[in-house]
């Protein structure tokens, strides 16, 4: 086979004529395209995740083996890039959302209602960040609501109102100033429902819905 390959190439070479400059040009072009494709796909799978590494339920994305010593190379790269120290999925589960339940990007220019069913866990928390992972300054120094402090209804469900201006019930301020993109992180420590390997399971219908109320 290599012989055939060589002969094919050399015959093609001749067909191309003596314009070897053109061949070099093709080669550089191929290499550049490969570089963009290779790095781009790696970046995407590390930054955004893929079905291999992340589970997606509505707006919530979760890296399944984050922090696990036996994690796949994509998860390991994602973790190293993030600079975080997450617990493995047997101790805690992390869910991140940067869109509402309909898929529009979360923005501080809009108002949202985060409606959650009771979570069967020792402790959970919904925290708000800007797109760079930083907390957002607000006069009441309120950055999150957790299972101990969120006002809940008799059935254990809760509603967190995410908006610029003060709202009743649980108000999570999205900060004044120019519109920014937002990220919500749901942390669930000590989930009581686990699969056989002890990984905390949160039934998909238990993850909070993020409903856009209005914009502007």
């Amino acid at each position, binding site marked *: 086979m290599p012989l*055939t*390959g060589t002969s*094919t*190439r050399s015959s*093609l070479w001749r067909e*191309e004529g003596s314009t070897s400059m053109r061949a070099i040009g*093709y*080669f550089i*072009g*191929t*290499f550049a*395209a*490969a*570089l963009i*494709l*290779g*790095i781009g*796909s*790696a970046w995407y*799978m*590390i930054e955004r995740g893929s079905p291999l590494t992340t589970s997606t339920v509505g707006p919530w994305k979760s890296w399944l083996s984050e*922090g*696990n*010593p036996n994690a796949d*190379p*994509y998860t*390991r*790269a994602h*973790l*190293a*890039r*993030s*600079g*975080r*120290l*997450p*617990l*493995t999925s047997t*101790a805690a589960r992390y869910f991140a959302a940067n869109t509402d339940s309909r898929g529009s990007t979360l923005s501080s220019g809009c108002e949202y209602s985060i409606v959650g069913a009771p979570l069967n866990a*020792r*402790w959970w*928390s919904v*925290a708000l*960040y800007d797109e*760079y*992972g*930083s*907390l*957002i*300054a607000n006069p009441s120094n309120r*950055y*999150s609501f*957790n299972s*101990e*402090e969120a006002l809940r209804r008799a059935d254990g469900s809760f509603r967190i109102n995410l908006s610029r201006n003060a709202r009743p019930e649980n108000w999570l301020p999205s900060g004044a100033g120019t519109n920014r993109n937002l*990220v919500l*992180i749901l*942390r669930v*420590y*000590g989930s009581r429902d686990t699969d056989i390997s002890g990984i905390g399971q949160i039934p998909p219908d238990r993850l909070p819905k993020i409903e856009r109320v209005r914009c502007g």
Partner: protein
Amino acid sequence: MRVSLPGLYIALGIVLAGLIHVVAVLTLPTLAPRDAQARLAALGPANTMIQLPPPTPGRQVMPLMAPDVRYAFCRYDLSDGPVRLRAHIADEHWLIGFYTPLGENFYAVVGADMKQPEVDLIIATADQTVAEVGVDSPEAFDNVVVVSSPVVEGIALIRAPLAGSSRSAEAERALKATYCGQHKTSG
């Protein structure tokens, strides 16, 4: 076998892209300059328990830190022998995670699973012997757990989730009472 020239370049491009993809994914963890270890090393020496300042807008040691969890860490270095970690678990929410510099969580102590609130741990590599250290008072060693660390330098991170925003001073006081230091092998 007749292969068209564009086809050949496309095949070559795909193989190259695949190779570059694999190399990029595998080398990235070692190239990330701002990993957790580097961030924590800037805060103080090894083998000492250090409390992380609570994250505030625009200022946090690690990205996406929980605003309602108080943290303390010990960057341990086992090159001079095992390291001791002691903590009085203030409530069942506490979690102690052990990490490699790349952020692999190889061991965790879950507060709710502990029978008593006193946590006494000796962190050692697989080839370090921790035995016979407490010969003079063996009963005091009954509750000591040896954590086998796959790395010589790693991180122990204590999480104290808050039971409410007014409870942070309490959690910080409890974290301050935790200890991390060189384990004395005088025995």
